[in-house]
């Protein structure tokens, strides 16, 4: 290491600058020079609590006050001091799970494809989108920009470059062009008609893929106006991916537009290929199997919009969040890679490729659809589109008695607007 390089890392220094209490103990990892074992415990330094010494390398885990950290840095036996940070299931874990890096190695990164994120907006200043946001629109009257963080997070999963992290949290299609329609307000809520307007805007922009990480209360049968316009976008030749919802694990919990017939409805799994507890289950109220496939949607680290705190903040540029919202832009990114590999791939072909090559996770179809997407197999397997819509696995119990369409329940005051869950 160069003599001029500071012993305290930049990230730790930033944290030290925000600490107001001199007695606050901060978790650190200290790297010592190899031949000074005695110093590994930090003994003799006021404000240091030794936690653990590692034997494979000369590192020690400690708790120390800001002043003690500075004293440690003055010690010639200390080589470097790092902040001990929480770890998460990373975007860099979810992308290998679905096979994206294998496609990157083949030169497929989404170049030439256009993805619309219809959501809470996007932070145009985030380094991970530099030079690739082609157009944005605000349909909420709040103004452009992302005051919530959800849209930025989704956009990053689909197409972030990972520039602000050296590529660690690179999105699935890091060379795709991004279009962002703001249809949800900073509180993460909106109206069907606003989302419909966002879908039409995306169609008018000539995008290839529309990603919708939003939904209304379930259950639905796909005949509502929002589902209908999503199907209309598909009829225009655009692949539409939609979140299934987060009202699982009960059945009949897929609302609009997840219940739309011709979209690709996305449920969530974790990095262990288990269906997320919260992932909404089918069937639709007209008996169709949904979701269609699942993708990772638990503890996903992706770009953070400036000034927002959605999810669990990792650092200035990234935050971790969960939901079928996070699974859906994974699908959008995969579709972009497939489109680059097979220009002109129709939405029906795209859907068939994803479903026919999905990995069976052993869950019921109403939870996993056909399984977890395998992007590499989807790109390299020729599949014909289905002639008939997929049918369910057998006799289906009817929806719960008194099951009104979700939007109507709200109109009648039977279900107040849902608050964000903890």
């Amino acid at each position: 290491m160069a003599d001029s390089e500071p012993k305290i890392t930049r990230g730790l220094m930033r944290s030290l600058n925000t600490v107001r209490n001199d007695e606050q103990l901060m978790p650190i990892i200290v790297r010592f020079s190899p031949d000074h074992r005695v110093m590994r415990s930090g003994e003799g330094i006021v404000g240091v609590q030794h936690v653990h010494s590692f034997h494979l390398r000369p590192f020690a885990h400690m708790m120390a006050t800001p002043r003690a950290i500075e004293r440690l840095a003055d010690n010639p036996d200390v080589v470097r001091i790092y902040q001990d940070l929480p770890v998460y299931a990373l975007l860099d874990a979810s992308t290998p799970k679905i096979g994206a890096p294998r496609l990157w190695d083949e030169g497929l990164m989404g170049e030439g494809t256009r993805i619309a994120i219809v959501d809470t907006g996007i932070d145009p200043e985030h380094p991970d989108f530099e030079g690739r946001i082609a157009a944005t629109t605000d349909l909420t009257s709040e103004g452009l920009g992302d005051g919530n963080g959800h849209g930025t997070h989704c956009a990053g999963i689909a197409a972030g470059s990972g520039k602000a992290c050296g590529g660690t949290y690179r999105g699935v299609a890091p060379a795709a062009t991004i279009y962002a329609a703001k249809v949800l307000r900073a509180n993460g809520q909106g109206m069907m008609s606003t989302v419909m307007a966002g879908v039409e805007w995306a169609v008018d922009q000539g995008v290839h893929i529309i990603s919708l990480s939003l939904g209304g209360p379930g259950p639905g049968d796909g005949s509502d106006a929002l589902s209908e316009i999503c199907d209309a976008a598909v009829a225009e030749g655009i692949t539409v991916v939609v979140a299934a919802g987060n009202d699982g694990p009960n059945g009949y919990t897929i609302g609009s537009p997840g219940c739309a017939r011709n979209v690709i409805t996305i449920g969530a799994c974790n990095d262990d290929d288990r269906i997320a507890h919260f992932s909404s289950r089918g069937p639709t109220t007209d008996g169709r199997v949904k979701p269609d496939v699942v993708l990772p949607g638990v503890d996903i680290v992706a770009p953070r919009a400036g000034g927002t705190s959605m999810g669990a903040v990792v650092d200035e540029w990234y935050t971790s969040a969960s939901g079928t919202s996070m699974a859906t832009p994974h699908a959008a990114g995969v579709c972009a890679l497939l489109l680059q590999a097979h220009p002109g791939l129709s939405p029906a072909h795209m859907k068939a490729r994803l479903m026919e090559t999905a990995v069976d996770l052993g869950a019921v179809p109403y939870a996993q659809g056909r399984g977890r997407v395998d992007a590499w197999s989807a790109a390299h397997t020729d599949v014909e589109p289905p002639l008939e819509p997929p049918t369910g696995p057998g006799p289906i119990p009817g929806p719960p008695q008194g099951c009104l369409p979700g939007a109507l329940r709200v109109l009648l005051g039977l279900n107040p607007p849902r608050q964000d869950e903890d």
Partner: protein
Amino acid sequence: MPDIDAALSKALREHPNDLVDLIIHVSGDLSQRVQALEKRNVEVRRRFRLTGAIGIRCTGKTALSLARSSWITKIEADGPVRALGR
């Protein structure tokens, strides 16, 4: 008569003076239908060329009178949606 959920119809009857956001599906030329609505003092908020639908705001009473129009094929509530991540 347009397709309108019985429960929505009931709600409109029970709250005739309350403003409600609806999405209506129309036949024929979309621009002409928008003009017809505006002549009836209906607030037109959105129009959707892909599906021939119009987002409106009006009272329950007005909505029920619109339901008698032959060129309106469906009336539904403009419901809430939310982001699905946290």
